[in-house]
């Protein structure tokens, strides 16, 4: 009989459930990739709402100059499903990879991710820390251009840097331009590169001990189909059997977004929202944030013990904001160096000119002095002549 009367411990999950559903959740997603890969469309497709009009970029680029810089666009939205609200922050990076010289164009994105960790850390150190403004990036979607060849150096450099700071999920954008064979080859090459370059991409945890075989199988499937090939669309079409589906309508057929035969969109959505949202949030907190914190604190300790230039507040355990000047951005540094070089060159040239002038003036003076002496000598000679003539006259 005692087994029927529970103490109540098993009710804890329900309590947590209530608490969480009251609080709601926060999810921050960063999209990164060259323009024209369907980032905006994908976001709209993912949440099935027009969070951002897809024409917003083009309108701006029509007016501005063609040389673009990487910008950070933050979009906040609250989504409600079955009385549960999820606060979604979508961060877009328009202008990435659009220039002729894309060296260091990842810097803004990396800085943004670091800044979020930093601001969170400093908020934690405040005396009152119950309200936190948290925009730490839980997942980064990196959009790869469907070239069919492989990853570009820009992709690799950027992904390498992101993967040490956040959960990186590479996706093949606009996958409806690759045939199944091409897609298979392309995926294989990307996976090889990711492995060889030691880029850590996010993988759903595989708990061998857990007896939930279905979840395991699902996770394995997700890992196998990485990087996800996706197709985005904001329009709905009739799929022939009478139901409306989100799809792209081509003259040669209808690409259904939520069809596993056509693309991996459903798998990606499952990874992002349905099954692994919590994993993403937790691994951000436990892995990426902790790593950042550790590195920062260590470097802080080092900084105060090794060089005492900034050591005025090393007494308390408070970490200062990173001394991030304008020169932090390597691009600015390059420009600065170029300008400095230009300046010194100019100065040198001017100095050279002045020296030349000086030389000329000195030469002139010597010449004039010579002339003067000559004239004086002549005068003297004439005077002598005059004197001799006078003598003769007498």
């Amino acid at each position: 009989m005692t087994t029927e009367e529970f103490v109540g411990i098993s009710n804890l999950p329900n309590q947590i459930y209530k608490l969480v559903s009251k609080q709601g959740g926060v999810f921050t997603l960063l999209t990164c990739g060259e323009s024209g890969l369907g980032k905006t469309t994908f976001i709209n497709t993912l949440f099935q709402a027009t969070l951002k009009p897809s024409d917003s970029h083009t309108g701006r680029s029509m007016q501005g100059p063609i040389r673009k810089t990487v910008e950070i666009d933050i979009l906040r939205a609250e989504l409600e499903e079955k009385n549960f609200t999820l606060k979604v922050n979508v961060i877009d990076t328009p202008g990435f990879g659009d220039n002729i010289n894309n060296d260091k164009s990842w810097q803004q994105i990396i800085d943004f991710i670091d800044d979020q960790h930093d601001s969170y850390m400093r908020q934690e150190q405040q005396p009152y820390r119950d309200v936190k403004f948290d925009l730490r990036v839980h997942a980064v979607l990196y959009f790869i251009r469907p070239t069919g060849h492989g990853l570009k150096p820009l992709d690799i450099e950027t992904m390498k840097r992101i993967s040490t700071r956040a959960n990186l999920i590479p996706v093949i954008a606009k996958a409806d331009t690759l045939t199944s064979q091409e897609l298979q080859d392309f995926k294989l090459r990307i996976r090889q590169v990711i492995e060889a370059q030691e880029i850590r991409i996010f993988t759903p945890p595989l708990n061998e001990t857990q007896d939930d075989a279905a979840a395991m199988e699902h996770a394995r499937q997700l890992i196998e189909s990485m990087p996800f090939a996706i197709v985005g669309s904001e329009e709905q079409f009739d799929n022939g059997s009478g139901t409306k589906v989100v799809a792209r309508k081509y003259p040669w057929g209808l690409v259904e977004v939520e069809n596993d035969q056509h693309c991996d969109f459903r798998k990606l959505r499952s990874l992002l929202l349905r099954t692994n949202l919590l994993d993403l949030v937790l691994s951000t907190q436990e892995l990426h944030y902790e790593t950042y914190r550790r590195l920062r604190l260590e470097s802080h300790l080092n900084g105060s013990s090794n060089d005492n230039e900034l050591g005025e507040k090393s007494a308390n355990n408070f970490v200062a904001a990173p001394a991030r000047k304008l020169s932090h951005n390597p691009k600015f540094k390059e420009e600065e160096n170029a300008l400095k070089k230009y300046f010194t060159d100019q100065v040198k040239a001017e100095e050279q000119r002045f020296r030349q002038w000086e030389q000329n003036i000195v030469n002139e003076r010597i010449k004039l002095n010579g002339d003067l002496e000559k004239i004086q000598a002549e005068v003297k000679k004439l005077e002598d002549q005059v004197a001799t003539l006078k003598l003769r006259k007498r």
Partner: protein
Amino acid sequence: MSASPVSQVFSPSNNGVSVFRRKKEKRGITFSMMLVGASGTGKTTFANNLLESTIFPHRYQQDVPASTNNENVKIIQPTKVVTFNSMNGIPSYMSAFDPASPFLEPGITVTSTALEITTKSSEDIDSATPEKINFFLTDTLGLGENLNNGICFDEIASYLEQQFDSVLAEETRIKRNPRFQDTRVHVALYFIEPTGHGLRELDVEIMKRLSRYTNVLPIVARADSFTPDELTRFKKRIMEDIDRFNVPIYKFEVDENEDDLETIEENKALARLQPFAIICADQRDNATGKYYREYPWGKIDIDNENISDLKLLKRVLFGSHLQEFKDTTQNLLYENYRAEKLASVPAWDIENNEVIDTSINDENNEGNSSGLMKGLTRNSTAPSLSNFASLINTGKFKSQQSLAIPPQSETPSTPRLTGVDEGDESRASISASSQKSTPANIQTSPERTKLRNISENIPYMLQHERIVARKQKLEELEAQSAKELQKRIQELERKAIELKMKEKLLRQNSHSQSQESIQTNTTKQNSTSGGAYIKKEETYNDLASIISKKE
């Protein structure tokens, strides 16, 4: 398979026939095309589709031997690298896929292939000998794959300039090479990435550069990523951007007075269609010989003109506009370049200063009509295609003006220029050679001597310029690879130092262990806290071992 779609496409379309026949030589028609565009936009596939063969291997699939399965196409000269440039001094073309190295920037490689296309015009009975097109295909690889793509278009532009230079050198030579091959690029297809947003900085910059040397046709590559609505919007945006940034692409212009009605209609239709949107494919139906793309949701027949402009483009390239592309290259772009180039010559050989003005005018004629006939008037060298006459005239007008100015402005500053020449060996030698030849012959027939001088000097000058440029590039490459090596050495040294540090640390640890004092260990911990995480753990282990020993 051979007779069906191929010959119809390659054979000139109805209106081009008459011009074609007259122009036809025994050696066939030379036509040269360049493919430019970011990697992964389907240049290779397009080339294969265009020739209906599998001549060009895909990236990372170079082990497949080049083969023509189209009997109308014959490879005369297999693909070879013409020029390349890369940041680390290593050419990337044909490198196999290596997952460990793709972070290396591939730089840019320009390759060239010579092909012979035979056209059996089935509708013509009298032509016993089939028509031949000597087709040069130049491909560019690695564009858009680098972090900094600045080096790419410099390389492409210098390649195009080189072709102009070699023709110019040949033209001015006294003894010409009868087997000289004109490798000027008549048309460049620029593949725009299917972003849906309009042109990017790179696109605008490259098209502007290319259009100085060749006709640029913008192409929307991989058009199968757009639905019909999106495609029309994208095309509109591209044309707007082209207008906005003044990109001088090839426009299908019409001359209302000169052209016949049919041509006007055709050109207008083509102009409306620009930029052409094409879909290319690798898969081929063995039965019908048609290319197709197969997706889980449908099959695309790339020859379907409602979907893809590929067939139309083929017709434009090999049929209706082939001669026009050649004529604009020769009469407008090349003439402008030539005038510019020759106008810059007077500054080089100053000894001929007084007579430069006339000599260049003569020289202009001499170039167009083979031979040294000075009596020819400018009109006689007018091109055969009348609708271009106006354009060419204006082009020449400009060139004449630009020719007239430099000698006048150069005369007063002569002493300064000679000073410059003394510094430069090459220039001095050129002026010296002209000096030697001038006084000897000047009494007998001054006009002839001038021409002789120019035809002697210019080829060498151009050659010399080329050599100097090449040398410079080689030096740059050398410097780059040296830098790369230096970097690697530094890296290795750094690693060595790190290892030494580690060794030292371990030794210290063992030393402190013998002292058995926890105090020193903790202080050391502080001092090493800046190092790697692993080191810390090591000290922890030490602590643990010490404690266990004590117990």
